[in-house]
């Protein structure tokens, strides 16, 4: 997890290898939906120790399923402005099929399993938990 902007280049560097000819990078960014009103930021909070454990497990599972692949992922916590990335997943593999599949696996499992919550903050100073 990180409180700073996600450095996608650093994640790509973590999984790059001359034997991996395909790299897939996924960024999930804070988006304004039509019924949100004037959202100025989304505050992410997390059960941080468990996020680390779950993320580690998901990455280990992906490496086991796609033995030629490596993956790296980060989730940002704290205030994340509209348009900025809240999560990033990078997968590199010898060929594109495995790279896409591994990246998809990691983001889907992260959405399903990571104990992370978001609170929308509005221009007027009010806020609400967003549960979806």
């Amino acid at each position, binding site marked *: 997890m990180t409180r700073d902007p996600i450095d996608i280049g650093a994640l790509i560097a973590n999984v790059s290898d001359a034997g991996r000819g395909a790299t897939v990078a996924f960024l999930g960014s804070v988006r304004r939906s039509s019924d949100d009103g004037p959202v100025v930021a989304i505050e992410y*909070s*997390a*059960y941080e*120790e468990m996020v680390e454990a779950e993320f580690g497990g998901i990455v280990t599972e992906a490496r086991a399923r796609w033995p030629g692949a490596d993956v790296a992922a980060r989730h940002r916590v704290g205030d994340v402005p509209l348009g900025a990335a809240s*999560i990033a997943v990078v997968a590199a593999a010898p060929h594109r099929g495995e790279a896409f599949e591994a990246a998809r696996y990691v983001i889907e499992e*992260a*959405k399903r399993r990571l104990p*992370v919550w978001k609170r929308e903050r509005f221009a007027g100073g009010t806020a609400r938990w967003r549960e*979806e």
Partner: protein
Amino acid sequence: MTVHCRFFARYAEVAGREALDLDVPRGATVAQAVDALRVMLRAGAQLPARPLVAVNREHAALDRVLVDGDELALLPPLAGG
């Protein structure tokens, strides 16, 4: 025995705190601990009877039997990503 309870996000607001130590009978399940919290906390009825939970930082079922010193976390609906 003592179970270390943790609350997050909206549930921390409902509980009015982020953690508390709960005494439960030996052999108590997660569901029984949740019932005790819903009675003990002033706004506890606002917590769901069957919340998502983690024990010792792993997702767990409500029929999981707790042991002394376990960390029981009540997790609001997940919204990461």
